[in-house]
């Protein structure tokens, strides 16, 4: 792979930071099962405890409020099942790991900017006395749109509902405070911001009800059975400590969007009217399928994606964009560009150049004289 490869798909996964790598290799070489009483076990336990403090500090939680999991998907599943509420209300733009965690959820719609409709949420909650759990994500994985979590909490708590927030795409990118937001459960993933894959956490407000459906050795204060992924957890801790270092500001994103719109004035930035993560742009290239864009950009040495990385490789239309009212033909032209700690301005310049080349090439062949210049 050429060294000059430009990676702009950090919302899929972010490369691990050097400090994370060092922490992990050290832990991998040290070994030890944190549940063992002897010295090897105690030193593994100390690593896990240190990382717990680091991750807790990242999201303003107490260390005891953090339970490590195998990742964001498990954290989301675990919260939705473990809270023990039969009635689940979730926003229409949630990640599949929330939407598919249980059956019979009630979907709360979003507006054209992707923001959850608080009025509908309030009405739905009032419609039944059954205690509920509301799950609304912190930031959307495709558009970067930030939800009004504090408002969601206010509405939900007033109706006696618990609140879960999937902060997988927000944590490590923008400040998050469990108690400041007032949420009861918060899902985190390490590999979205420079930590390793295979580790995440569920932070829960002390006192929030929780019963894990995964049974076994009683690790993580009975909230998550299984020998702890010590090296992964140590890496997660190191990523939490380094989280803010070298992150691009919204200026880079805004500059990118302005440059692309200059090339194609009809290009549309999704969620532009809402607050968004500073690292994410979801933009259409008019008339050009995202699949085509992704392949052409890959040939040009640039990694981006057409949406979520998750499922099976099938290119499907983005459910997130459809929920925002984007037409299905248009949704097929949307590209996701996401920066991270390793992104430099040159990466963005390369993307702009390649995107412009592609747009001119394609529109010239498909729509004769669309852009004479």
């Amino acid at each position, binding site marked *: *792979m050429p060294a000059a*490869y430009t990676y702009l*798909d950090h919302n*899929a*996964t972010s490369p*691990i930071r050097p400090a994370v*790598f060092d922490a992990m*290799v050290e832990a*991998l070489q040290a*070994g030890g*099962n944190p*549940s*063992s*009483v*002897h*010295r*090897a*076990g105690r030193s593994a336990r100390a690593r896990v405890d240190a990382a717990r403090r680091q991750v807790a500090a990242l999201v303003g939680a107490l260390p005891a409020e953090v339970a490590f*999991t*195998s*990742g*964001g*998907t*498990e954290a989301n*599943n675990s919260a939705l099942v473990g809270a023990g509420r039969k009635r689940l209300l979730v926003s229409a733009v949630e*990640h*599949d*790991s929330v939407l*598919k*965690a*249980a059956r019979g959820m009630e979907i709360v719609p979003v507006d054209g900017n992707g923001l959850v409709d608080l009025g509908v949420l309030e009405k739905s909650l009032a419609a039944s006395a059954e205690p509920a759990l509301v799950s609304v994500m912190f930031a959307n994985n495709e558009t970067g749109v930030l939800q009004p979590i504090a408002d969601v909490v206010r509405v939900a708590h007033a109706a006696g509902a618990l609140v879960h927030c999937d902060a997988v795409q927000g944590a490590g990118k923008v400040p998050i405070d469990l108690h400041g937001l007032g949420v009861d459960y918060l899902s985190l993933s390490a*590999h979205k911001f420079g930590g390793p*894959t*295979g580790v995440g956490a569920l932070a829960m407000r002390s006192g929030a009800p929780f019963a894990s*459906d*995964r*049974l*076994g*050795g*009683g*690790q993580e204060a009975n909230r998550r*059975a*299984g*020998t702890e*992924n*010590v*090296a*992964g957890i140590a890496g997660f801790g190191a990523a939490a400590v380094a989280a803010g270092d070298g992150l691009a500001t919204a200026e880079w994103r805004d500059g990118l969007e302005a440059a692309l719109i200059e090339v194609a004035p009809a290009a549309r930035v999704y969620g532009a009217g809402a607050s968004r993560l500073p690292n994410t742009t979801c933009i259409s290239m008019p008339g050009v399928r995202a*699949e085509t864009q*992704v392949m052409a950009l*890959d040939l040009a040495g640039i*990694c*981006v*994606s057409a949406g979520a*990385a*998750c*499922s*099976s*490789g099938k*290119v499907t239309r983005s459910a997130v964009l459809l929920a925002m009212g984007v037409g299905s033909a248009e949704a097929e032209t949307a590209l996701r560009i996401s920066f991270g700690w390793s992104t430099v301005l040159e990466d963005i310049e390369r993307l702009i150049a390649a995107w412009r080349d592609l747009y001119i090439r394609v529109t010239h062949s498909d729509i004769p004289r669309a852009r004479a210049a």
Partner: protein
Amino acid sequence: MTAITQIRRNDQPIYLDYQATTPLDPRVLEAMMPYFTYKFGNAHSRSHSYGWEAEEGVEKARAQVAKLIGADEKEVIYTSGATESNNLAIKGVADFYKDRRNHVVTTVTEHKCVLDTCRHLEQEGFTVTYLPVQQNGLVDLDVLRAAVTDKTVVVSIMAVNNEIGVIQPLAEIGKICREKGAFFHTDAAQAAGKIPLDVEAMNIDLMSISGHKIYGPKGIGALYVRRKPRVRLAAMIHGGGQERGFRSGTLPTPLCVGLGEAAEICMKEMDAEAVRLTKLRDRMLKGLNAKLPEIYVNGDLEHRIPGNLNISFAHVEGESLMMGIKNLSVSSGSACTSASLEPSYVLRALGVEEEMAHTSLRIGLGRFTTEHEVDTAVDELVHHVTKLREMSPLWEMSQEGIDIKSIEWAAH
């Protein structure tokens, strides 16, 4: 290939707890390294080469794991570890077939995550039969045969016990399950890579594997799920639909690669390693027996993995002994419950009396154990056991021929 260098620094205690966890083999670490750094892609990203490269690593590793147990790679799904594999196998199969079958068979010496899962199923309305084991720790096949009915959905019996290392008669159990039409799940966390396993010859339908018990990383495991005849499962973790829908979540590429490499090394070295470890274990037992009377090995010594001993040192409190032998990292039972002072339920199930169970140590030998370490461990154990016994009035009485059980203790 990297030469195996000494894992332990000289100032560290001797690690004899290989059933709790194993050190990462340096060769495994080396295989993982590129996937931490320049091959960091999301294995599910299909639109660029970072993703493809990661996927290639994940799939090669899947084939390595499959080969270790005689499976097809399509039958191996990644999980976060054996606890998750066990939960998913038992709950998943029970949930999927619950309309037709509502009975589960297991044994009383299973790992806690299997027993807890079975208890959970009881709350859900399933009937669970907990089979006793014989004094040697092995399940009685006639008792098993009698317990399995046409309502039994799954029989879950561990391949190798985590405390006493005994190997269950897997092929015979598999045969009984197949005859009766029940699925056979085996928790092979302690067996994979240590004894030959063949899902075909043994009629195993579901098998749990752990990375960190085979010199691979923590946080990764696998579940074998038979495809012919097909075993179906209700998933526990839902989302992106990875792992054919059985287990959603971004795959941790470096961990998958590490599991695969660990499996391949185990497979290559299994025979030679078994011979070496058996020699070391025999040396240890002989050394202890030569100097210490009244020590008892718990569990069958013949049907046992080479790297395990579980010994009761009569009249010596296991916890006190562990405090004394500071230079040895051993445990008094399974790591999960080692912080509790309850006697091991596994030993109790063998009929070991409570007092005797309290005197037991689990000693695990493995890939990096040396003859010198074994000799040092024997010396330390002999020294401390002898010292503790000298201080023990019970030991004195027993040496004088007094039957301690006959004593009636006066209340103070």
